[in-house]
């Protein structure tokens, strides 16, 4: 379940950041939050989104960064794929 959640987060970011940067950004912030890929859970999404947002703002602007952060947090409501 955790791996598929990770993939879904990466899928949100890939159209803008590209697959390589989307993957490395998510993994880097998970590591900084001491969350392993195996332990990644829906409750971690708001933290992860808030960590990603400042960096995204620099590249895509605040509006789009907020939109992407909301999409990541919104994965929670959709439930596991």
């Amino acid at each position, binding site marked *: 379940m955790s791996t598929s959640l990770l993939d879904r987060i990466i899928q949100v970011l890939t159209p*803008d950041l*590209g697959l*390589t940067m989307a993957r490395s950004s998510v993994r880097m912030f998970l590591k900084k939050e001491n969350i392993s890929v195996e332990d990644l859970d829906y409750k971690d999404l708001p933290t992860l989104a808030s*960590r990603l947002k400042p960096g995204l703002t620099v*590249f*895509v602007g*605040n509006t*789009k960064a907020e*939109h992407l952060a909301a999409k990541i947090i919104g994965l929670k409501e959709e439930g596991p794929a």
Partner: protein
Amino acid sequence: MKTPTLVAGLVGFIVSLVAVACIGPWYSLDIVRNLLAIVKILSLFASALGSLVASGKIKESGAQRSVWLGLGIGFSMMFLSQCVLFVEVTFLDMQGVFTTYADPLFLISYVFLIWALISFSLRSFGSGLPLGSPLAYLSPGLIVLILFCVGGVFLLYPVINSGAPNAEVFYNVFYPVADFILLVPCAVILRVSIKFRGGRLWMVWMPLTVGFVLYLLGDLVFAYQVSLNMPWLEPMMNFLFTSGYTVTAGGVLGQFDLIKTE
């Protein structure tokens, strides 16, 4: 078909046409030169308007907005200078005259473009995204700086000693120097944009920086053509500028696809 694919296809098509126009015997025809000038003006107009609109669409004040505003003002100045050049060459019979009223406008445009790109490269450094170590991040810019310090003197020495009037020498030195300064943040951004390959950010910053590299090459060729009286370099110079402006416009248009939130 997606918008970025259409823009990339259109840019590729125009650059191919520009290449054909510049390498054939038809280059000496007035109509071909006028068409190339119109492509330059339209490309710069698209870049200027696109950058200013993009800056207006970014609601919050901050890095993104100021970067696109700086680019917008820079491209607007370039657009005006190309318009002045077009009028001078087409209607005032000033073909081959240098320096002209367009040059101060070009000079101002560089100030804004350099400021915008340095601002963006510094902000992206502090973004917190995994862009590499500080040394890895800055190394492309440092390499350009070292190359310019070593090679720039040799490249510009013949231009400085050409015996041309002072104003001519000033601009012929200013343009390549300003381009090299522009190339420092460009090299940094180019490396960063490679990390975003496949994404919309790549479709914005890759063409923008490649376009600026073409400007640099165009200015170097221009300096040699004017100072050392090498008219046979003109088609190459025209190709570099026209394709550079077109490629840059493609990058600016990509920004609209990036900032939209579906």
